[in-house]
C-alpha cells in the first residue's frame, strides 16, 4: 500500500505533472497509549485551500536545500508529510 502510493507519485513526477516533495517526519514522542493522559493542542491554525502557502527551505536527503519558492511559476507542488515512513509498519 505504502509502496504503491510512492510509485504512483514517482510516476506522476516522471510525467512532469507536478513536483513531489516528501517530508519524512519521525515523531519525537513515544507512541501514545490509551492509559496516557494526553491533551491535543493545535500548534497553529491549519492551512486552508486558497491560502498562500508559507515558503519553506528544507534539507533534502541529498543535503541540498529545497525551497518552495523555487517552484513558483514552474511546477505545482505535491507536498506529502509522511509520519513514521521509515518503519516496518
Amino acid at each position: 500500500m505504502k509502496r504503491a502510493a510512492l510509485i504512483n507519485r514517482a510516476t506522476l513526477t516522471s510525467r512532469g505533472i507536478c513536483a513531489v516533495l516528501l517530508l519524512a517526519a519521525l515523531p519525537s514522542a513515544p507512541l501514545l497509549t490509551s492509559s496516557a493522559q494526553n491533551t491535543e493542542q493545535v500548534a497553529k491554525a491549519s492551512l486552508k485551500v486558497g491560502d498562500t502557502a508559507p515558503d519553506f527551505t528544507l534539507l533534502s536527503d541529498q543535503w541540498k536545500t529545497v525551497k518552495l519558492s523555487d517552484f513558483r511559476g514552474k511546477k505545482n507542488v505535491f507536498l506529502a508529510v509522511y509520519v513514521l515512513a521509515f518503519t516496518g509498519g
Partner: protein
Amino acid sequence: MDSPAANAAFAKQINVKFPLLSDMNKKMLTAYGILKGYDVQSESYQWAQRANIVIDKNGIVQHVEEGDSAVNPNNALSVCTDLHKKQTAK
C-alpha cells in the same frame, strides 16, 4: 524528525526519485499548522500530522488533507492532474 542521513537511507531502500525533506527545526510544520502538541504524563511532545498538500504554481494551496485519510495520496493526485489539465488548456 528524520535527519537528511536517515532520509537518504530510506530513499535508497525504496528507490524514490523525488526529494525527501527534513524539517529538523519544525519551522515548516509549525507554519503549516500540522505540528501538534501532546502532553503525556506531564511531559510535552510535538508530533507531526500526516498530511497531503497541493500547492499550485502561484503558491496557492489547492488541497489539504490531514490525518489518517492522508495515507492515501489519490485525492491529492487527482487535484494535481486537474490543475495540470486546467493550466495546459489555457
